[in-house]
Structure formats: C-alpha cells, structure tokens
C-alpha cells in the first residue's frame, strides 16, 4: 500500500520537473518580464509531492512495513523509534530520496526567495535544477527504488548496521546533504548566468546567501561526522583522512574559496569567470564524492551494499554534467580584465583562493591516486595521515598569517598596513607562556601555535572594534576566530595526547608512569537488540590522586550479527580520558587502550563557532534584500 503511494508521489514529482522545464522554455520566448503564476504553482506542487514521498518511506520505517524491501533490509521491529526514523536515510535508496528532496527544496526556495528581477536568469536556473532533479529521479525509480516490494512479506527485518545507530549519525546525513546537495543551486545558477549573460554584481548578490547556507550546513555536517567517529569508532581520533571524509572536505574547501571570491565579485572587482568555475566545481566535487562513496570503489564505514550499476549511473551522470557545463562555459564566457592592486583586500582573497585550491589538490590527489594506481598497475597503496600532515601542515602557517593580516587591508586601495603590531607581540608572549608548559620542540607545530594564537587574538580585537565601528564584518571575525581556535586546540591536543596499549585480566593492575589502572570486574547483560559485556576499570591519576571509574563496552548485536566496541569516555571539560577494550578470543585477557585527549570539547566548540559566521552571513543578506 505505502509502496504504491510512494511510487505515485515520485512519478508526480518527475512529471512536475518535466513540466517546469517545458513551461520555462516556453516562457523564455515571451516578452514580458514576469514569471507566470503557473510556474510557481508547479514548483510548490513538486515540493509537496517530493516531501510526501519521503514521508511515505518514513512511515514505512516507523510502522515496520516489511513488504518494502528497503525497510526489510534496513530496519527491525525492535529498533528504537529514533533509529527507525533515521533508517529512512540510512540506506543507499533512502538517502538518494533525501538527495532529491533537497534538490527540489532548493529549486523551490530559489524560485520564491531569490527575487532578482531577471526572468531569463531565474528561468534558466530552474531549468538546470530540474534537469538535475529529473535525472536523479530516473536513477531512483529505475535503479534504486526505495519502494520496491517484497513477496512473500517477511515477518522481521534485517536491522540497521549498529555503528549507524547513534544520535549523531541520525542527523549527520541530512546536515551534510543540505550542504553539498544545496550547492546544486549555485551550480544551476552559474550555468544560467552564463547563458542569460546576467550582470556580474547581481549574480554575486544572488548566490551569496546560498553559498553561505550550504557552507554552514556542510561545516556542521562534517563536525557531527567527526564527533560520531570520535565517540563511536573507538579509535580515539576525530579525523582520519579517510577517502569518505575527504569527499566531504573537498566541496567544503571549494565553498570556502567561493564565498570569499563572491565578496570580491560583489564589489565588481573581477573574478567573474573564477566564481562561475568554483560554483560549477563545488557541485561537481559533491557528485564525485557521491560516486566514490556509492560505487563501492572505496571501502569504508559509509559503503552501502554494492551494486556496480549504481556506480555506472552516477559516473555517466557525472560525465554528462561535467562535459556539458564545460561546453557551456567555453561557449558563453567572456574574457575579463582583472586589475588587482597589490596589498588590497581582494589581493589577499585571491591568495586565500590559491590556498584553498592547493588544499583541494592535495586532498584530491591523496584520494584518487590509490584508485588510479590500483586500476593502472594493480598496486595497492593507502594514503594516510602522514602524507596529509606532512604536505598540509607547513601551509597552514602562512594561511593563518594571511587570515590575520588580509582583513586589515582596504578594498581597492594599495595602502600598506602595519603587520607586526601590539597584538602580535601579545600573541608571542602567550605562546612563550604555553611553550614553557608544553615544551614542544617541533618547529612547525610551534609556528602553527604562534600564528593560530595571533589569529585568535586579532579576531578578538576586531570583535571588540566591531561594536564601536559597524563597518567591520562580524561574520568574518567570528569565523576567523573559530578557525584560529580550531587550529590552536588541534595543535595542543596533538602535543599533549597520550596513548597506551596493553593486555589485562579481570583483577589485574597496570602501572603506567602517570596512571594506575585496575581492571575490577566484568559484567554481561542482554539489552534490547544486543548483548553487552561491560568492563569496570578504576583509573588513578598518580599526580592529583583523582580516581576515575570507566566502563568500556563490547556489544554484540543480533540484527545483523555484529560486534562493536564502545569507548568509555570521561570528559571533564578540559580533557577526555578515553578507554576502549576488545576481547582476545578464547582467553581471559582483554586488550585495553587508554588515551588521554586534552581539549576535545574545545575542538568541537571551535568548529561550531566557525560555522556561526556562516549563519550571520545568511541573515545579513536577508535583511538587505
């Protein structure tokens, strides 16, 4: 029953996107400068039906309707309600439906809220966006239909992968999708702007809020993903340079470059073609990421059950998309003259863009190189953190410095400014005080510390000034402040982290230089849909004699049969004590990993502050329009 509804709703959505393309093309020929009401109506209709199709699938999960194969494969009647709901986007098919919902939502929002008095531009954007919607709907209906039926109807479902049963992960995909699927709207707008030869300043003004919006959600999505990896995967880290993480970072870097460039374009200072390229590239990289994750080329926690036809479809779509947008770009783009004054604000933004492009290339090469090597020569390598840290870390230092100094300069003028001011010396002093405590010897780490402190203090100083002088861009100040803090706390965390690995039996004690760990007891329970083994550990800090009680877990899930290791984390604001335990088969021993991770909460907080700057940008826009 639900399945029929779902398919009907999706078919209507498809029909409306076809109609929207048809009507918009017809409308382009007419002379009046007003978009007719029927286009607005069809767009609303499209949004209603796509949301209905999503709600239908959601209902299927909530009532455990196992006649739908997608519900059968990804849910179980005993699963808690939250995870039944999040199961809707926990599978390939369901998450693709979410994709389409976001494509449609942005098409609708753009039509209704981006009133830019340029009919041709607006209509072309809707046409391109609906091409995207239509293609993805074909993919969904013919290859990955979430509403396919199963007969005979099974009594029970197979269950959702237990490591995905986590509150952070329930909201991670929607956030990330709003981010990178949201970038589709400025992809469409960029192509539309080329064809309709829209005025450059108008284009910048129109896409700016959408870039900020997608950037904000992308940042939050990455943050939640990291938090999940830290708490759930039990490795004690928050960023692993996993190819899948890289797939979310690459669009983020492009979005960051994009909204800096938009600031330049907004003031008619050039970079028009560059902004167009970045807009196209952001969504392209998002689709590349989707291809890597969905095709099964990469192995990771995100890989859904594989089906080669999916990869082939996404690849075909990607090829068509890339080739046609390059063709449109070359056909319609005009050469422009960029006159950048040395040491002007736009000059620094241009340099920022080069940094982002460099980071993008490093991450892209690190992600793709193993795939190429494997395909061409059959050699298997994995590119891990050492490569990224080695190549990226030194470049963070000049980036931090430029982030601090660039904003001090004015638009257009080439007036030089004092760079090493009082704030710098205060920062240097704070650094020396910190160095005295942490005693770090690595030059790059120390330089990163100095310049991240400098950026943080400078931003604080600007924040103070912003209240006196309204001309200071508060969203920039907040984001730069968050970034400075982020790099600072990552460096400190890197310096002060401790990791110890050992085997213990129940009753044993382990004497480390700073800690005494006692394995007190072990208990086993049956909870809902899993069996748990909980270890009871006393950790004594020899220095301050504080005792901590930690209880890491091993969980054995029934549906599907999987083992997961739950870290026990004692978070006392400044530092996390992180304990994981894994069983050594057929023995009394347990493998114990103790990690001390300082300032984890501050790392999360910094990213949150970073993202807040983006929100401010969205609201500022709305007020002015």
């Amino acid at each position, binding site marked *: 029953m639900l399945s029929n509804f779902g398919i009907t709703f999706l078919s209507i959505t498809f029909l409306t996107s076809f109609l929207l393309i048809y009507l918009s093309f017809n409308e382009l020929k007419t002379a009046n400068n007003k978009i007719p009401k029927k286009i607005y109506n069809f767009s609303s209709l499209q949004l209603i039906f796509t949301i209905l199709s999503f709600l239908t699938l959601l209902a299927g999960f909530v009532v455990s309707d196992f006649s739908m194969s997608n519900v059968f494969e990804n849910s179980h009647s005993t699963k808690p309600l939250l995870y039944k709901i999040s199961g809707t986007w926990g599978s390939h098919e369901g998450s693709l439906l979410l994709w389409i919902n976001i494509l449609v939502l942005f098409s609708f929002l753009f039509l209704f809220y981006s009133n830019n008095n340029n009919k041709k531009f607006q209509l072309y954007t809707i046409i391109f966006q609906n091409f995207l919607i239509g293609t993805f709907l074909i993919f969904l209906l013919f290859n990955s239909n979430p509403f396919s039926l199963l007969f005979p109807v099974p009594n029970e479902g197979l269950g959702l992968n237990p490591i995905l049963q986590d509150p952070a992960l329930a909201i991670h995909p929607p956030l990330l999708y709003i981010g990178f699927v949201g970038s589709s709207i400025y992809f469409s707008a960029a192509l539309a702007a080329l064809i309709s030869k829209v005025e450059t300043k108008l284009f910048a003004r129109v896409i700016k809020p959408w870039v900020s919006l997608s950037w904000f959600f992308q940042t939050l999505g990455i943050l939640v993903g990291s938090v999940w990896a830290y708490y759930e995967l039990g490795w004690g880290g928050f960023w692993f340079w996993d190819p899948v993480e890289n797939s979310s970072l690459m669009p983020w870097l492009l979005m960051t470059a994009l909204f800096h460039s938009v600031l330049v374009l907004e003031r008619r200072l050039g970079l028009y073609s560059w902004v167009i390229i970045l807009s196209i590239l952001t969504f392209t990289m998002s689709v590349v990421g989707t*291809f890597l994750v969905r*095709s*099964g*080329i990469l*192995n990771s926690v995100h890989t859904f059950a*594989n089906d*080669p036809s999916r*990869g*082939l479809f996404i*690849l075909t779509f*990607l*090829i068509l998309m*890339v*080739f046609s947008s*390059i*063709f449109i770009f*070359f056909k319609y783009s005009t050469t422009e003259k960029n006159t950048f004054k040395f040491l002007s604000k736009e000059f620094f933004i241009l340099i920022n863009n080069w940094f982002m492009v460099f980071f993008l290339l490093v991450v892209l090469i690190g992600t793709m190189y193993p*795939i*190429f090597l*494997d*395909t*061409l020569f059959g050699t*298997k*390598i994995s590119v891990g953190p050492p490569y990224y840290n080695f190549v990226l870390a030194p470049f963070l230092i000049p980036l931090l410095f430029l982030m601090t100094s660039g904003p001090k300069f004015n638009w257009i003028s080439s007036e030089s400014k004092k760079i090493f001011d009082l704030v710098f010396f205060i920062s240097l002093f704070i650094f020396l005080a910190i160095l005295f405590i942490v005693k770090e010897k690595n030059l790059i780490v120390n330089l990163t510390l100095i310049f991240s402190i400098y950026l943080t203090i400078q931003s604080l100083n600007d924040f103070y000034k912003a209240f006196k002088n309204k001309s200071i861009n508060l969203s920039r100040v907040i984001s730069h402040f968050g970034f400075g803090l982020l790099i600072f706390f990552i460096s400190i965390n890197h310096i002060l982290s401790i990791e110890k690995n050992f*085997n213990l039996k129940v009753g044993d004690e382990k004497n480390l230089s700073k800690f005494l760990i006692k394995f007190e007891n072990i208990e086993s329970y049956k909870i809902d849909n899993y069996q748990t083994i909980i270890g009871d550990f006393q950790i004594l800090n020899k220095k301050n004699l504080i005792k901590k009680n930690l209880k890491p877990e091993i969980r054995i899930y029934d549906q599907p049969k999987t083992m997961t290791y739950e870290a026990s984390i004692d978070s006392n604001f400044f530092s996390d004590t992180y304990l994981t335990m894994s069983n*050594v*088969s*057929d*023995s009394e*021993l347990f*493998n114990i990993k103790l990690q001390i991770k300082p300032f984890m909460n501050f790392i999360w907080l910094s990213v949150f502050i970073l993202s807040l700057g983006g929100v401010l940008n969205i609201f500022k826009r709305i007020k002015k329009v």
Partner: protein
Amino acid sequence: MKKNKLIIIYAVLIFIFLILYLSLDNKKIYNTEDLVGKKMNEVDLLYFESEGTFNTREIFKNKFVLFNFWASWCAPCRKEHKNLIRLSKNKNLEIIGVNFKDSPQSAKKFLEELGNPFSILAKDPDGKQSINFGIYGIPETILIDKDSNIVKKYVGPLNLKDVNEIRSIVEK
C-alpha cells in the same frame, strides 16, 4: 585558442573518467570472503632471516600450505601458537609464517619462547605484501591446496575446532 583549451580539458577528463570506469570492476580485493575458491595471488615475500625473496606459488607444489600472519605484539597470536605447533606435526601440511609489522628481535624472542612451527618464515615489515592476501588484521590464516587454490580463510586466532577442520581437509 579557446578550442585548443577545450580539447585539452576534454582529453584529460576522458582519461580520468576512463580510469574511474575501469575501477568500477576493480574492487573488493579487501573482501576476504571473495578470495576463497580462487587461485592465490603470486606474491614475492622476503625471507625473515636470510637475504632475498621467494615466490608464494613456486614453493611446496603438490602440498597443502598454510599461511599464518602473526606478530609478537599481537596477543591472540600468542594464544593460537600452540595450535600451529600441533598442526606443524602434520606431514601433508607446510606452514609458512609471515611476520607482520614486527621488530626482528621481539619476533625471534617470541619463537624461542613458544617454539617454531614454520617450515618457512617470511617477513612483511611494512604490511604491504599482506594486502595481496586480503589481510585485514592479524592473526589471519589462509589454507592453500595442492594447486594453489585458497581453500579456507581464518580471521582471528585458530582454535581447536579450526585445527581439526584443517586436519580433515589436509588428510582427505
């Protein structure tokens, strides 16, 4: 000028997309389950003590071979070692040990303490060669028949049940 640029960009992209297309079929080597029933990859392994390498397909033709991946730092390896010693007494079977990401001294100490069940001892100090066997982590053990086909794959330490299973396969 514009046309030339376009052609170059298209050419580069066609190459990239071609590779991605080819890579679609070229995957899952990490999925150990898929290896069972297939012929084993030819891999050159380093001898543990002496210089040089040997090829995994060339040695012990017409005999069952058991590849065991272990390290002295791996607690479950210690646990399964007595079972390897048991198996080493079987005349139809040769055991090749691959010492995985280990220091030579502690590996030697480990064998001195617990005994050496291996007919040949190889090493894979950076873990790169083991990837060809689809090794996720250690201990892992792979049983190869007389024609170099992978018969069985054991992830985790061998227990007595596994030992009996290996014996029955080898003696058939």
